[in-house]
């Protein structure tokens, strides 16, 4: 009987109930989308920002000093100081190793370039060797997949990227290639200190920066050409970091100024400075420096986005509660005669409140399920358009949305239920 009444009321009041369902669909879809984006966005924003380059650079301490003091990026005291290639995998062993997403070694060099089939040489050009792609199994058993390809997602490449360990091909910066009319597929020769090597131009990249003047090779090819086996100039690291606070700034000045407790907190938080500190502990002679703007903006943007999404979720919940409360109250007032009659027939207040609540909850459930799936769709659209990637669907959102929905409908029903409680059957049944 109860269910028959509920069902028939729902059917009879379908326009009003559809409005309620619609409100719920809107609210739930918005909240679902926002929460999924919010939970997925930490990663997404970071990955997005990573395209601006590595957020930590590790260099030899002397080279770093020269650059800090005199702004030197070349010459004696800079170009002749090296880090050890063998240290590089230790990055994954630091406390915050898990937060290190990608890293590549860099080795700078110079060589004389000439093109096969053309007379004479073009001249001395800068080269840099790195891992375009790198797959390795770490001593911890963890599989590593990194490479410049993931750090330079904005590159426009004509032709192809170098494969892992493809040591007889090179990629040319766009400016260098244009200036000298070198095309994909051309054969070139590089000469340094009597070492002569032949390469095929596999790709031409457009970085938009100074690298467009350079030649990109695999690390080992540069090491061979420069006779610098096992040596690297720097490491580019991309890491997920926590936004800096006062403690982090104090530590960045001098970690020794911290009390033991502070040090512990700092060390065990993924501040850029803490990660840099830990990198220096494993990379011999290395000095790790955050690339400031990027590292900081990552954290700030992340915080602001999260705040925005929470705000939208809260506002949409309040909006839904208000709309639902209006609709339910209107529906109850419209039916006050019928509900008064039920009271006259012996229904207790709570029974009538329950009747109305269940109607609303059923409608809410219906709208909630529809809204949830719609919200997942929205999340993907946001993911695709704003972050250019798929957003992982967090199960937790179902629970959170269900709880919010429950309280929103409950809260929205309060005015209607108060009206019901106060309703006197005599007032509505003897209506003249």
């Amino acid at each position, binding site marked *: 009987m109860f269910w028959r*009444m509920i069902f*028939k009321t729902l059917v009879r009041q379908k326009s009003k109930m559809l409005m309620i369902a619609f409100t719920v669909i809107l609210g739930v879809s918005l909240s679902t989308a926002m929460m999924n984006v919010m939970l997925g966005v930490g990663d997404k924003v970071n990955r997005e920002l990573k395209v601006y380059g590595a957020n930590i650079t590790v260099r030899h301490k002397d080279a770093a000093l020269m650059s800090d003091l005199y702004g030197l990026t070349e010459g004696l005291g800079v170009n002749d100081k090296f880090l050890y290639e063998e240290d590089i995998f230790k990055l994954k062993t630091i406390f915050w190793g898990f937060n290190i997403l990608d890293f590549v070694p860099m080795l700078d060099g110079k060589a004389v370039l000439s093109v096969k089939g053309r007379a004479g040489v073009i001249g001395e050009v800068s080269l840099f060797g790195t891992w375009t792609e790198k797959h390795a199994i770490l001593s911890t058993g963890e599989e590593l997949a990194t490479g410049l390809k993931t750090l330079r997602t904005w590159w426009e490449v004509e032709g192809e990227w170098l494969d892992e360990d493809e040591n007889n091909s090179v990629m040319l910066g766009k400016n260098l290639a244009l200036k000298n009319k070198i095309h994909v597929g051309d054969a070139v020769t590089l000469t340094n200190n009597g070492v002569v090597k032949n390469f095929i131009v596999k790709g031409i990249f457009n970085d938009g920066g100074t690298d467009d003047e350079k030649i990109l090779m695999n690390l080992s090819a540069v090491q061979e050409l420069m006779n610098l086996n096992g040596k690297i100039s720097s490491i580019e690291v991309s890491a997920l970091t926590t936004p800096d606070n006062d403690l982090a700034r104090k530590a960045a000045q001098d970690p020794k100024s911290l009390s033991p407790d502070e040090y512990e907190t700092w060390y065990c938080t993924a501040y850029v400075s803490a990660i840099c500190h830990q990198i220096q502990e494993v990379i011999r002679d290395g000095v790790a420096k955050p690339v400031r703007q990027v590292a900081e903006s990552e954290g700030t943007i992340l915080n602001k986005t999260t705040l925005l999404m929470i705000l939208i979720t809260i506002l949409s919940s309040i909006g839904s509660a208000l709309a639902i409360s209006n609709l339910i109250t209107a529906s109850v007032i419209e039916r006050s005669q019928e509900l008064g*009659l039920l009271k*006259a027939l012996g229904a207790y207040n709570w029974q009538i409140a329950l009747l109305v609540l269940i109607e609303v909850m059923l409608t809410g459930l219906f709208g909630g399920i529809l809204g949830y799936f719609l919200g997942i769709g929205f999340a993907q659209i946001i993911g695709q358009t704003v972050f250019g990637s798929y957003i992982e669907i967090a199960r937790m959102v179902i629970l959170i949305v269900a709880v919010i929905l429950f309280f929103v409908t409950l809260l929205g029903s309060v005015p209607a239920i108060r009206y019901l409680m106060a309703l006197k059957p005599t007032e509505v*049944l*003897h209506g003249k």
Partner: protein
Amino acid sequence: MAEKILELKNVSKIYGSLKALADINLSVNAGDWLSIMGPSGSGKTTMINIIGCMDTPSLGNVILDNVDISRENAASLTRIRRDKIGLIFQQFHLISYLTAVENVMVAQYYHSMPDEDEAMEALEKVGLKDRAHHLPAQLSGGEQQRVCIARALINSPQILLGDEPTGNLDEENERIVVDIFRRLHDEGVTIIIVTHDPEVGDVAQRKIILEHGKIIDDIDQSATFGEALKLKGK
């Protein structure tokens, strides 16, 4: 002698400066059939509401089946009403989207358990078995009022209260309804009916006249009882 089922002792209902009921004393025996008449605004509905546990008196006591209900709270009034009172209204008040039998079952639901067979039986008593699955809008006024009576009776109340139950009916339907009352009276149900219609008022065993919230006349009609408003053809 028959036992008292209802007693009003010095009952008043006061709205501001208006005394809708002024110091009413009345006792009704179980199985009686009582008419309440009087001009508009004399307090008839107010009195029925108080007897029907839908309102409480401002002053005085109402004793229903040996229980003083004048100071009970809303929940226990609901319970007493549910168990002891059957209500019929002038405007019928059927739930428009439920069929006749379902309307009867609603009263069962809030009393105990819906039981379709029992509800059908009640409809049969008022001659509506074949209309049981129609919606109120598909029934005539007289038929709707008979559904109301079936609904009022379904939980076997001790007292049947009607506030102008025939007010919206034509003479033919009025007779049918009165005839049902007559049968209920024979079964021992106490009947209290407010009416403007002298003929309906005359059928009862006893008639009280209200004016300005006071009982101005109390007429014993047992001598003529049973004669007025017989169904035509019987």
